[in-house]
């Protein structure tokens, strides 16, 4: 299996905070989750990978070539990003989703090719938003909007999909919808997924590989069973936890333990 993404000894950040010698791999066709307490650098790491934050030391290679050496547009045809806070332009769903085809516009292309429209239609169908493609983004619910963001990323036809907290303010049914969609994309379309998740149990259920970040450093990395242990989680989050296992999947489930009086 090829490495989709290979991060080596990465040091990056901004005044006041930086990532310290991060090294990990993202294997092709895997779903990798980045977890950790608030302020541990998860978003910073993502934004460094996508190029928003410059690299100070170390390297990131995509598909075995240094990312810095690859053209931005070329990368955009292969990597799609769904950020945590997406501004909502006053567009219709269909118009918004079509924007994701921009990396595929040929140099002098001006109008949407039939191919673009076809891809957009297929993806909207796959994601389940065809019914409201003529409505404005601002009219939809939070969950529906998130599906639109997904669709916009998916029309880019990425090999790698990077997401920052895709289920943050969603109810459990929408959470399940989003995670289900991601799983389908991973299995059927062979899309590699790298996402920041704040919910440890979601990370456990849906990811094959986890990266636990604390204070800008990798605390530990590995499959969920290996990472989600009392030892690592209590040290990282500094509260007592109880680990059990999911009745259906047998994957670890994290519960918060009772707070002892001695904790401030």
């Amino acid at each position, binding site marked *: 299996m090829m490495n989709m993404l290979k991060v080596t000894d990465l040091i990056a950040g901004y005044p006041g905070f930086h990532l310290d010698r991060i090294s990990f791999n993202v294997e092709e066709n895997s779903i990798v989750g980045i977890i950790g307490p608030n302020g541990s650098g998860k978003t910073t790491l993502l934004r460094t990978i*996508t190029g928003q934050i410059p690299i100070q030391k170390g390297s990131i290679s995509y598909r075995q070539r240094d990312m810095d050496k690859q053209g*931005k547009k070329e*990368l*955009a045809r292969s990597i799609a990003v769904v950020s945590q806070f*997406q501004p909502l332009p006053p567009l219709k769903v269909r118009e918004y989703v079509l*924007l994701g085809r921009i990396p595929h516009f040929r140099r002098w292309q001006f109008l949407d090719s039939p191919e673009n429209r076809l891809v957009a239609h297929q993806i909207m169908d796959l994601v389940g938003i065809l019914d409201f493609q003529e409505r404005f983004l601002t009219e939809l619910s939070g969950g529906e909007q998130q599906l639109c963001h997904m669709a916009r990323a998916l029309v880019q036809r990425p090999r790698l999909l990077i997401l920052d907290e895709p289920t943050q303010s969603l109810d459990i049914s929408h959470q399940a919808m989003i995670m289900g969609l991601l799983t389908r994309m991973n299995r059927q379309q062979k899309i590699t997924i790298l996402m920041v998740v704040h919910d440890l149990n979601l990370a456990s259920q849906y990811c094959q590989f986890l990266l636990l970040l604390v204070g800008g450093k990798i605390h530990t990395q590995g499959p969920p069973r290996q990472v989600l242990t009392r030892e690592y989680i209590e040290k990282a989050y500094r509260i007592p936890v109880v680990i059990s296992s999911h009745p259906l999947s047998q994957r670890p489930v994290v519960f918060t333990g009772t707070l002892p009086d001695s904790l401030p």
Partner: protein
Amino acid sequence: MKISTRLILLFLLFIGVILAGLSIGAVTIPFPKVLNILFTRGTGIQYEIIHQVRLPRILLAITVGGGLSLAGVLFQALFRNPLVEPYTLGVSGGAALGVSINHALLGVTGFTLSLPLSGFAGSLVIIAVLFLLGFRKGHLRLNNILLTGVMISFISSALVMFIMSVSGRNTTHQIVFWIMGSLDRVNLPLIRLVLWITLAILASMIFLAVRLNAIILGEEAAANLGVRVESLKKLIFLLASLLTGCGVSVAGIIGFVGLVVPHFVRLYLSRDHRILPFASFITGGLFLIVSDTLARTVIAPVELPVGVITGILGGILFVYALNKQHLLV
């Protein structure tokens, strides 16, 4: 109604308004005669009124109305803010200041081009200041530019008032009237020059349209779509400022056009920047021709400053559009 149908209607309306503007005035010239005069050489009072008085005004209205609307589209895309218009950034303030200084100091020379040139120079100074102040560590900080621009606007106004208070009555009167905006500037070569510049910038929208669509999503999202955001921002800022500077130098300050027209086009035609700039240009030209014709005829033979009509009409239309949804960029 399909978009293509609406576009055709818009174009027809545009042609109609041009013909009406050429026909209406102190001397009413019927349409067929207008067409005749436009395409043949001739003499006589009707010929001269059309070629020397009305045609330059119409061309100027298209140039300035279209140019300001285009600048409005660009600025609103750049700042992702629906209340930004070409004058928010103080470029017009700089032009007004340039012209005021010209009137106050250079009473000696009066060559026809000195006013537009000084206006343009004033706006260039402001553009340079904004660009340098907003440009830190390799990227253009939009918030800085916006706030700085608003402040520059206030400072320029204060300076213009200062110049007016120390100048003679005639100078003050000239400055005030220039600032109020007028399409009665009769210098044809200058109008043609500005028209070509504006059309050239409009044509360049063909290459920028797709990227403009991307930047609506925000700088980060646009970058993730492969767009070179920094160079795009700089380009948009420069083109839009250039359009504003040109427009203000030849016609004075005609407000509201750059604010209202893009909103209207977004509401009734398209938010897509492959259509928006071109439709806004035509709509802006149309709007200004109508305003100017009204300004000329409402209390004839007295001519109102065109800014009065654009302000009132534009204000009413804007409030109307505000009550519809989806106003935000």
